[in-house]
Each structure stands twice: as structure tokens, then as C-alpha cells.
């Protein structure tokens, strides 16, 4: 009875355990306190960063870049994915190229994009968008191609034209898979943006904050920035899951 009521608290167990081990490790000085400050010190730095606005500013910058990159990727990849998915022969002929670049680490494209766009925000955003486009495109196209055959036949038998079938059936059928693509796309965009902020002439952003704190040996601030990046990634994922639930109410049913 008691156990049943405590069940919703289960996810907290892992968090508490992690904090306990961290605290024990610093309290007993198993690790050099300079490399690993106590949880209290690290969260103190996080709190300070939020309050004086420095961490918050970096946080917003990273959100802006990741969001912009994902938006560009979605605007390009979703219509393209639908077209490619609806014309399966076209997709098959481009499949190798898409898979090849999807498998290429986007970070390997930095030098090329630096040449094209210089060291500004454009480079970071466009590399992230490039990575996300391929992930979203691939998922949308497969979502369209895997539309239930019976549903397509049902629309056809009711006299729907090819265009109608595309918009009334294929598009909606592909939505769950499109959201999978968007979720993977935004995660990848965040990874690329954070890496770019570290190494490509950045003055701000969470990646820059982590890197700078490490250079200055300000370990509490570094952990604070890492934590902020983790929280951002988690929140973005959650946001897309919630969006999917309200858009694709029939998903999984």
C-alpha cells in the first residue's frame, strides 16, 4: 500500500543517489576538490550565474541559435521530405547521398562552412541546420512512404485525387515520424551549436561558457554551465514530446 503510493517518486531515486555519491566523493576528498567541487558549491555558482544574468544570457543565446537552426531545418526538410516520400523512385535515387551526409559528422563540415559564412552566427546556425535537415528529411520521407496502404486505398476508393491523398492522408500519416525527426533534429542541432560555441570564435553561449570556465579553472562555473546545457537538452526534448501529443492526438492508438 505504502509502496504503491511512493511509486511516482521513483525517478527521484537516481537523482538523489547521484548527488549523494557526488557529495561523498567531495566530502571524503576522493577526487581533487579543484577538479570536482561539492554539489553545494556548483549549484551556488549556477544560482549566481542565473542571478547576475551571465549564465542566463548564454542560455538564451544557445536557445536562440539551436531554435533558429531547427526552424530553418524544419522549413526546408519537411516539404522536401514529403515530396521525396511521395515520389518513392526519386527518394531511392537520392537515398545514398542522403544517407552518406547523414552519416558524416556535421562537425567535419565546420571548415567548409567557415569558408562560406565566416566566423559569425551564420556558420554555427547553418552547420547545425545542415545536420538537422538530413535527420528530419529522412524521417519525414519514411513517414510518408510508410503510410498505411489501406488508408491510401480507402481515400482512393472514395475518389480522392493524388494531391488529395497526399495532403489528406500521407501528410497526416507521416506526422508521428516527422516528430521523431524533429526531436532527433533539435538534439543534434544543440550538440553542434554547443561545440561550435566552444571552438569557433564565440563570445557567448553555453558552449563558450563551459570552455571559458575550464580555461580559467573556474570549475564550479563549468559544472553550472554543463548542467544548464543538460537542462536545455532535456527541456527541448520534452517540449517536442508535448507538442507531438497535442498535434498527433491519435499517435500510438
Amino acid at each position, binding site marked *: 500500500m505504502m509502496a504503491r503510493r511512493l511509486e511516482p517518486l521513483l525517478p527521484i531515486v537516481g537523482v538523489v543517489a547521484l548527488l549523494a555519491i557526488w557529495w561523498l566523493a567531495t566530502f571524503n576528498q576522493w577526487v581533487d576538490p579543484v577538479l570536482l567541487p561539492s554539489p553545494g558549491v556548483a549549484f551556488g555558482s549556477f544560482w549566481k550565474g542565473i542571478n547576475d544574468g551571465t549564465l542566463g544570457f548564454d542560455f538564451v543565446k544557445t536557445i536562440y541559435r539551436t531554435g533558429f537552426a531547427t526552424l530553418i531545418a524544419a522549413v526546408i526538410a519537411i516539404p522536401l521530405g514529403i515530396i521525396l516520400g511521395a515520389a518513392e523512385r526519386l527518394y531511392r535515387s537520392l537515398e545514398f547521398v542522403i544517407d552518406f551526409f547523414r552519416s558524416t559528422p556535421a562537425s567535419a563540415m565546420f571548415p567548409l562552412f567557415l569558408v562560406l559564412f565566416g566566423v559569425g552566427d551564420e556558420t554555427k546556425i547553418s552547420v547545425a541546420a545542415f545536420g538537422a535537415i538530413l535527420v528530419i528529411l529522412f524521417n519525414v520521407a519514411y513517414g510518408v512512404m510508410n503510410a498505411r496502404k489501406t*488508408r491510401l*486505398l480507402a481515400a482512393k476508393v*472514395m*475518389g480522392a485525387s493524388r494531391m488529395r491523398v497526399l495532403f*489528406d492522408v500521407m501528410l497526416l500519416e507521416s506526422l508521428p515520424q516527422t516528430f521523431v525527426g524533429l526531436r532527433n533534429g533539435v538534439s543534434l542541432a544543440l550538440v553542434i551549436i554547443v561545440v561550435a560555441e566552444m571552438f569557433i570564435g564565440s563570445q557567448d553561449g553555453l558552449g563558450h561558457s563551459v570552455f571559458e570556465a575550464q580555461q580559467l579553472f573556474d570549475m564550479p562555473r563549468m559544472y553550472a554551465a554543463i548542467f544548464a546545457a543538460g537542462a536545455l537538452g532535456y527541456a527541448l526534448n520534452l517540449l517536442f514530446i508535448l507538442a507531438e501529443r497535442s498535434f498527433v492526438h491519435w499517435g500510438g492508438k
Partner: protein
Amino acid sequence: MTAAVTQHAIRQETPAVPSSPAVGGAGKRPHVTIRGLSKRFDKAVIYDKFDLDIPRGELITVFGPNGCGKSTLINMIAGLIPLDAGEILFDGMQLKDIKFGYVFQNYREALFPWLRAFDNIAYPLKMMKVPAAERKARTEKLVEFLGVKLDLHKYPYQMSGGQQQLVSIMRSLVIEPEILFLDEPFSALDYEMTLFMREQLQRLFMQTKMTTVLVSHDLEEAVYLADRVLLLSRYPAEVADFVRYDGAWPRTDETLSDPEFIRTKSHCLEVFQREVRR
């Protein structure tokens, strides 16, 4: 060889069977005429110069060995699968010139889960470019006509299997079709629902007397619901028999013990077994 000739030949071998008047007899023109229909999948010849007349205003059930092409037949008539050769005419007209309804076995995949039941039912009217207000009126009229007590504001996935199939049948009826095709419409339902749906279908048929072609994998159901049972042979499919059953509508539990029903059923079984062993 026409269907009528085939029937005649078989009838002579089995004189105990109630005689089935040839389709198109007594001055009634057949609704659907199939001539020289051929279809093959890879190397398997499913139909080879197949001829059939489907009478108007009757409920025809199609029964035959597994994989003989029962569903293929109605799918070709309804234009879901192209023919390799042959011609199918409806009162001399092409499929595109008539209104027909089609009910899939898999209602879960045939309905649109993103539309409420009501909008699912009204969808074919949208394809016919009927204005929104009239779509609503016609759908409401159909609901009233059928006396369906369902919350049509629900989404399909919020409904039971039987309710979903009922919605799917209503969707096929909203355009007021001249002919209705059903591909094993009840085989994904539990038994209780199947009985209920058979009743619903009978009521509908009695009210409209619409030409209806229903594929079944259950011989008892095939006879129970039929004016005529179309028995197909193994592929390449031919008409093994086209058996008439004149039991009074609606068919009830008593139908099952009607001597005529039992005789027709055992005759169908006999034909079926002969075809399976062949």
C-alpha cells in the same frame, strides 16, 4: 463459359439442390456484368477469362477456398486493383460513372484517426465537392435513417471495434451508393459484435435493397446473409456454383434451424469440399 451455363452443368449432377434461377432471368437485367476478366499475380493465374453477372438488388456473398481470389474479385470490381484483361460494366457504365461504397476488413487502418467519426463519415462527400453545410445535413440524415446511437464526436480510436466498423460502413453509405462492397467486414470483430453487425447490415439491406457484395470466410455467415452465395473454385477461379437461398428477411436464430437453410448450407459445403479436393 458464362455463369449461367456453369450453374446449369452443376445442377444436373446434384439434383437435390434447390434450383437457382439464372441471373438476368425473369426480365431482370443484371447490375454488374463481368466479361473475360483475367488477372495474374506473378506466375499464379487467379482469373482467366472469368464471366459473371451480379443481379440487381440482391445481397451476394462470396465464398471459396483460401487464396482463391475472393477479395481480389471485389477489389477489381471496385477498381482497387487493375485488371489484366476483361471488362466490368455497371448497367453498361464504367466504374467512374457510378457511385459505390467499399468497406475494408481492417477498419482500424481504413478510417482516418485524425478525424472525428462524423467527419470520417462525411469525407466521401468532400471528395464529391459537396458544400460543407450540405455534407453535414446529408451525414445527419444518414445517421437518422440508420437509427445509429453513437457519439460521432468521438475519434475512431475512442470507439470499440464494432463501432469503428459501423462508422466505416456509414462512410461507404453517405454518398447513397448504387452498389456496396464489403471485404470480410466482420472478421476482425469479436463474436458478440459480429452478431450485432450482421443484424445492422440486414436492417440496412432490407431498408435500401441495394446491390451488395460481401466476401466472407465463414460458410454459415455466407448463407445466412445471402440471397445468393457465389462459390468460387480454387484459382484460376471459376464459378463453382451460384446458389440461391430464399429464406425470409430478416434472418434470425430460427433461420439457422430452417431446413432450407440447412440444405443450402450443406450443398455449399459439398461444392466447397469438391473444389478444395480438386
